[in-house]
Structure formats: C-alpha cells, structure tokens
C-alpha cells in the first residue's frame, strides 16, 4: 500500500508537485500517467526518500521510506536503468545491493536468471544496451521479493518482445497481490498494461479511474454521412451542435448524441447515409485531460520582425 499525502515539492523557482494526494492499492497494476515534466519522476523519487518533500509525505506500508528497516524487502524500484556504476559487473552490482539488506547471495542468481541476463552477468554494465540495463534494473527491484514495485517509464528502450514480456510481468506481480505502480507518458501503453490510472499534469492531480471510467468521461463524437451535408451542417449548428470536421465524406459532430443528429437530419429533410457514434480515442482523452497542464506545449508562433 502506497499513499501520497498532500505532497508538494518546490525546486528553487518551479513547483514540481502541487498538493498531490492519491493511494495506490495492492493487487492491481496502477498506471501513473502525465505529460513529460508533470512530476511523475519527482513523485517516485520522493516515495523512495531520494528527494525531500517541501510539504506532505509519501507513506509506504504506513511508514515513510526512511523508517523502513529493510527497504529492499518492502519496495523494489526501477527509476533510471542507467543508475548503476558502468565499470561494475551486473553480478557484483546485485551482490552489493543484496549484502546491504542481508539478502542471500543465491537470490542474485535467481533474479539474473529470471530477467534472462545470466549469460552477460559478468560483463560490465557500461557495455549493456538500454534493454539489458532495464532488465538489470528489474532484477535489482525484485532482489528483496518486495510487496511494492515502482517502475518509472519501464518500456523505454525495450523492443516489442520486451514490452510484451514486461506487461505480462506486471500483470503477474499484481496477481500475486503486490502493489505495482508504473509511470508512463503514453496513454496507449497504460491502456493495455494498467487496471487503474492516476493522471497528473503540472504536478497536480487530475483524475483517477479505470480506462473505461476515463474514456466515459470524455465526450464522444458522431460521424454522419448525408445526402446534403451543407444543409445538415447548418441545421446541426442551429441546434447547438459543433462541427469538428467537415469534408466531402461527411461531418464529425460534437455535443450531440447520434439519436439527436438523426432527428435533426429527419427534420431538415436530409437523407442519412451513415450515422456512427465515435468513442473518444484514448489519446484524445489524455490530451483533453492534460491540455491545460502541458509544461512545454507547442505555442503559436508570432513574428517578431514585423513593423
């Protein structure tokens, strides 16, 4: 069980996290979603006691991270796969970690085997590809067989096979009753790998729920193809509908249901050729949720040389 309680983090001039609160429950994969720079990594670092919060706290199994007596047995984390001395071998890296928390040496071989890097375990980590480093990071996270696992952008650098492996892996960890907390800036990735999603933007909590909950909150659109698009468009606008897109194929209409669009077409005497309710895509939902909260949005360009 992981609790974020009114967490605030200010770096000299920027507010990285702003009064953030949420709980992450065991037994499910919880996605932590937000645009780049929204405070996901900072939150993860605070959970691990690496950064000190300005206000509030992160609570791990009822304690702050610093109070844990054998932290690797309670929390396993993969923040940055390259957080390893490049001159050390994977085996020695894991041995040193294991020794600090009194984890027996044989466990090192087990986790190396599990992530499939036994054959390169005696090579220097600096020579590893990003994918191999990710696997080493996962091995390190599993070392203490912890009940809580944190992964910051774990699919970065993985090939499709690796991505599939890691999804199944998250699922099996959750099925074992563990708390699995995975950050990503990709909604599509979260849609396939997470049961629950927490969305943040600019360090603030935006929403929380299942993928279905999130897509349901976003208004869908209706695609309509008709005999006289111009007339239908005018009728829809008159009834407070919005035209998102208009071309020779048809109209994409917002703010109205397909029933309403059908009725409007009938009243206007236009023959409907196709009427399709369209569910908002996950990316649309995400963009809609975080539109106000993108740190470095693409602004409009203005000429500075005129006059």
């Amino acid at each position, binding site marked *: 069980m992981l609790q974020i309680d009114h967490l605030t983090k200010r770096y000299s001039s920027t507010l990285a996290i702003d009064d953030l609160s949420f709980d992450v429950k065991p037994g499910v994969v919880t996605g932590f979603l937000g645009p780049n720079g929204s405070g996901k990594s900072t939150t993860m*670092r605070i959970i*691990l*006691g*690496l*950064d*000190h919060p300005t206000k509030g706290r992160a609570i791990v199994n009822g304690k702050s*991270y*610093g109070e*844990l*007596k*054998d*932290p*690797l*047995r309670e*929390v396993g*984390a993969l*923040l*940055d796969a*390259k*957080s*390893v*001395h*490049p*001159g*050390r*071998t994977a085996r*020695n890296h894991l*041995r*040193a*970690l*294991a*020794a*600090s*928390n*009194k984890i027996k040496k044989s466990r090192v071989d087990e986790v190396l085997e599990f992530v499939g890097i036994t054959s390169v375990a005696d090579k220097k980590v600096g020579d590893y590809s990003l994918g191999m480093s990710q696997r080493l990071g996962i091995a*390190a996270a599993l070392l203490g067989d912890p009940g809580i696992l944190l992964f910051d952008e774990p699919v970065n650098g993985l090939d499709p096979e690796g991505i599939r492996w890691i999804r199944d892996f998250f699922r099996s960890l959750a099925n074992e009753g563990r708390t699995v907390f995975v950050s990503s800036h990709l909604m599509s990735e979260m849609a396939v790998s997470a049961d629950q999603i927490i969305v943040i933007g600019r360090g603030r909590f935006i929403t929380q729920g299942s993928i279905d909950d999130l897509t349901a909150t976003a208004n869908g659109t209706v695609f309509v193809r008709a005999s006289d698009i111009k007339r239908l468009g005018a009728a829809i606008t008159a009834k407070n509908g919005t035209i998102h897109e208009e071309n020779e194929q048809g109209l994409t209409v917002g703010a109205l249901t397909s029933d309403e669009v059908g009725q409007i077409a009938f009243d206007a005497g236009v023959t409907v050729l196709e009427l399709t309710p369209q569910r908002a895509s996950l990316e649309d939902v995400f963009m809609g949720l975080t539109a106000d909260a993108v740190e470095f949005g693409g602004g409009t360009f203005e000429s500075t040389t005129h006059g």
Partner: protein
Amino acid sequence: MDNEVTLASVAKSEWIKFRTVRSTIMGTVVLIVLTIGLGVLVTALVRAHFHTMPLSQKLTFDPLSTSLVGLFFAQFAVGVIGSLFITSEYTSGAIRTTLAAVPNRMQLSMAKLVVLVTSMFVICEVVCVAAFLIGMAIFSGVVPTDSLGSGPVLRAVLLAGVNLTLLAVFGYALGLIFRQSLACISVFVTLLLIAPLIGLAFPQSWQNDFMKYEPINLGSSMMSVVTKANTFGPWEAFAVLALYMVALLALGVTLLQRRDA
C-alpha cells in the same frame, strides 16, 4: 529484526562496491608504484652518489625521509581513491540505487568511511613499511640506515601510512561536499600544494605561526623523526589533521542528509 539493515551489512555492501571498480584498483596500483618505485629510484641514486656528498650533507642525511620520498606523489593517488568512492556514485547516478537500498544516509556515509579507512590503512601501512625496508636494503653498507627497531623511526613510518589514510578521508569528505571528481581534485591540490605557496607571501612571523597548520606540513611533521622549529610534534600534527577531517566529514554528511539525491 534479523533482516534489518545495519552498519555492518552496509559496510559489507560498500566493500563489494569498493573493490569491484577499476578506479580503486588503478588508484592502488599507482599508489604502490609511486611510493615504492620512486623510493627505489631515489635511494639507488643516493647510494650511487653518496661518496660525492659534502660532509655537512652526510651528517644531516635523513635515510627515513629519503626512502619515503614517493609519498609526496602518493598522497594525490589516495585523495583520488577517496573522492571517487563517492563522486562516481553521483556521476553514474548509482547513488539513487544505493540510497534506495540504504535510506539512512548517516549509516551509508559511515559504512563507506569504515571501508575506506580500513582498506586504505592496511594498504598504506604495508606500502610505507615496504618502501622504508626496500630503501634501507638499498642503502645498506654504503649509506647510513635507520631501523624499525628504533621507536621514533617506527612511529614515523606508521604515521606516514596514517597520514595517507587521512588524506584518503580528505578526498572522500570533499567528494561528499562537491559530488564531482574534478572539483574535489582541484580543491585537494589547492589545499595541499597551492595554499603553502600563498603562505609564503605573508611576513615571516605569520609563516612561523600558521604554516604548521597546513595539511602538507602536518603530514611531514607526522613522518619526521626530528621536531623542527615552528612545527608540531608528530602526535600533535596527527591530532590537528584528524580534527580537520572530522570537521570536513561533518559538513559532508550534513550536506548528504539535507540535499536531494
């Protein structure tokens, strides 16, 4: 609790880390080659030319300090070993993995200190005794020699190793403070070599009062058999240098605890 992270378990972990990177191995090789290699070179040269020395030089000749001449360079090797022990964690980002496993930063810094002091003490003592014995063996028969059987000589040779160990701690404390190797090495060299040069610009009376506090002069006081004017005795010099290290470590550990990793 049986599985609790302890100073001993963290020290074990840090010992594995310390001996499994090339910088430690290379630093130790450099330390040995400089101390013993330069010692052999200089003592052999002295042996070859001793008969040409004027009588006054022969009378004041100090076999001990001649055999340990390589220590002047070795002190930079141990400074680098000490600082890299912590700065390499910052440059590679490994400090995050380390602190996630050992959240108690006081415990972590003390475990590192224990590993550094123990290993450096053993290595430096062996190197200093070896350099001394090899030097005396080369001198033997031609040049007057000292013996470890003499109390002050034994003390000087052993304190030479202690001095190097303290300088490794110096590098480590600077590493905790600055978190990057280049800054550490610059400050280390400045305090050890450049500060004494600046001291020379001051009036003689000031020099007499203050130069004995410079780390490099404390070091030579520690490994000297004769107490010169305006210097500390060997044990006093050791106490002052150790106090410097305690103060720097206190600052370093405080910063480690306060700062984000």
